[in-house]
């Protein structure tokens, strides 16, 4: 009995030592295995990973998807804890300064020249903070308006063309959307990312309200100016008046258009591929602007960077450079999804393809995307406080969508931004 007790006690002691050991040493480097983290569907990266592994013998890439809604906070949480099980990760472009300032991105300045040559100046600049290069842009984006021609035909309304010179205003769009609803379509107008700054910034910018961030150090907010209030009152009214549904969250919206339940849908180039299988007869048109205002579209996408805590930085750099700087690699990252490559050479080869993605329905999309990227695109504010700013603004947008008064809610958001930026000063 005593002997048995001692054996059990030894096992218990050994277990506790193992627990201590497990807590004190993390999983180390894994040779040529690169751990990659991003919010996209794993299927999207299969061609890229296959191409990389074929071109780089001995390397393997393991991809982990984190859902978009939880992505930024999860990455922040894991990298702050110096999690070395992430080698390469996607970072939303305006968050690069914030992540770099916290020491959560590896300095990539030694490939500055190659990076500058591979992409546009605007895209290259999204990776710069404090004079150094921290992330490489992989994709770019814009927004298009998808027009449900079946819904408009029912209402006897002629929709907008793909020509940017014949761009509709938001007021015209809302009027046609109402007509479509009266003719039987369930919803008139839907913005794909209903409460994200990326999609709503152009509303205020179109009226001249600016990005909401001002100041020399870009750490002063201006989100309650009259133009922002007017834009957000219009946004809130689309839900109040029943043009858009309140209970459908960002990125849950596209199935509604694909099912024919929405007359006008403002979404990204990725929807061209997504809507190709839909039975709806749709066309693309430029994103609307406010009457008397400017035509403005969002831009930017994901850049990728290297985790400073990675135990496998050389392999991580090889993968990152292949995906961003090598045209073949960058093109492979877009093979299974419709998104604009950030690499100039890859984009030139890729863009003409989008015209035929959905047969006749996507005709003209390539020229329209090129036009918007070159003429109407605005960038999200490049500030070390973007992460806090976006978080506060997205919450305010959700409240306005649910019926909060735009003016007082924006005022409150401004105070919250000031408070959130206090530790940054």
């Amino acid at each position, binding site marked *: 009995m005593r002997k048995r*007790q*001692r054996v*059990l*006690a*030894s096992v*218990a*002691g050994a*277990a*506790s030592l193992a*627990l*201590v050991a497990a*807590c004190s040493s993390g999983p180390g480097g894994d040779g040529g295995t690169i751990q990659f983290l991003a919010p996209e569907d794993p299927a999207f990266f299969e061609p890229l990973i296959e191409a990389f592994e074929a071109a780089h013998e001995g390397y393997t890439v393991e991809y982990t998807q984190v859902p978009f809604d*939880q992505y*930024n*906070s*999860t990455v*922040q*949480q894991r990298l*702050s804890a110096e999690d070395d099980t992430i080698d390469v990760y996607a970072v939303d472009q305006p968050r690069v300064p*914030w992540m770099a*300032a*916290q020491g959560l991105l590896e300095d990539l300045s030694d490939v500055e020249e190659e990076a500058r040559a591979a992409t546009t100046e605007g895209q290259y600049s999204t990776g710069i903070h404090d004079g150094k290069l921290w992330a490489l842009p992989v994709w770019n984006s814009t927004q298009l308006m998808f027009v449900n021609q079946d819904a408009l035909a029912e209402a006897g309304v002629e929709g907008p063309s793909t020509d940017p010179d014949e761009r509709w205003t938001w007021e015209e769009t809302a009027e046609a959307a109402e007509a479509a609803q009266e003719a039987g379509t369930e919803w008139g107008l839907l913005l794909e990312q209903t409460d994200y700054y990326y999609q709503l910034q152009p509303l205020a910018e179109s009226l001249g309200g600016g990005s909401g961030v001002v100041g020399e150090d870009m750490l002063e907010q201006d989100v309650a100016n009259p133009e922002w209030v007017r834009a957000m009152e219009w946004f809130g009214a689309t839900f109040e008046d029943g043009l858009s*549904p*309140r*209970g*459908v969250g960002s990125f849950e919206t596209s199935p509604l258009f694909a099912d024919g339940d929405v007359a006008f849908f403002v979404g990204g180039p990725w929807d061209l591929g997504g809507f190709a299988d839909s039975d709806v007869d749709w066309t693309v048109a430029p994103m609307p602007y406010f009457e008397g205002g400017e035509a403005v579209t969002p831009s930017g996408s994901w850049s990728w960077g290297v985790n400073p805590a990675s135990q496998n930085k050389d392999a991580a750099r090889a993968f990152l450079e292949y995906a961003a700087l090598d045209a073949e690699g960058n093109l492979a990252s877009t093979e299974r999804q419709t998104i604009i490559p950030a690499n100039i050479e890859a984009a030139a080869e890729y863009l003409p393809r989008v015209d035929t993605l959905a047969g006749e329905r996507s005709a003209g999309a390539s020229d329209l995307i090129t036009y918007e990227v070159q003429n109407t695109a605005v960038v999200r504010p490049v500030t*070390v406080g973007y*992460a*806090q700013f976006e*978080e506060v603004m997205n*919450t305010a947008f*959700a*409240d306005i*969508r*649910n*019926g*909060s008064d735009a003016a007082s*809610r924006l005022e409150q958001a401004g*105070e*919250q931004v000031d*408070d*959130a930026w206090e*530790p*940054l*000063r």
Partner: protein
Amino acid sequence: MSGPVARAGGRAHTAPGPRRGHRGTPWWRGTAAVALAFLLPSLVALTLLRLLPGATALWGSLHHTSLLSGESFVGLGNYLNLFSNADFRNAVGVTLLFTLVVNPLQIAVSIALAVLYTRRRMAGAKVWRALVILPIATPPAVSAVVWSVIFRPEGGLANALLAVVGLPPQGYLTSPDQALASIIVLLSWIGVGYWMLFLIAGINDIPTDLYEAAELDGASPARTFLSVTLPLLRRPLSFVLVAATVSNLLVFAPVQILTGGGPEGSTNLLMYDIYSRAYALGDMGRAQAEVVVLVVITLVIVAVQFRMLRSED
């Protein structure tokens, strides 16, 4: 443990060298060492997973981290800053209101169901009991998604049921006045079955002759419940009360998935506010101060509950 060690201590005066246990065996071969070895995993886990993070949070809450000036000691500055912050005060208010409603509600329904499924002869009681327990096996994220569809203002099941009885559609999770109540319904759907299990076990432990005596005395079901079931259920009930309180103070997933603390901060429970402050706003100092505040609130509530239960004894 104290016996052999005390004796070993006494021998140490006359026999220098390693302390020796019972019948001259060294202490590390005695039962005390065996007991210590068995306790070691728990002690190590307690230290590494509870005490150390707790101490780290307390230490971090006394520091301010700035991108420009780095980390500096600010004493109670983070706490003062928190209490002057309207959003934090709102989160404390929402959490206290939530605690005051959700715990009595869940426990009252759990007791009612536990009595119904044990004391009353109900047709198909085992099937009903299984159905009530079933939500426990559903992951919180899945439950949240299921209820998001039920609560959807346009075309959701809840509004469809209201329409059947001629009532107008409600906003549920999109309404500042209804979102917290909607979260409470969701959590009770999960929690009631779980707490009911402990209470059923407690009721089954009550001797049946007490019920027979009550029946012979002509006690009504309500009197039997108040004079027999409830007093003898006090021990499991006190466990359920404390465990439910702590569990509900730590609610996070449904808020993060369904409301993000909104609309207008109406579901911004402290756990979500801590997460948001730490990982969305990157303000670790104040987030850690908020952790300490939450722990203090929890300890105060649990201490009050223990005191109330003790005075009843």
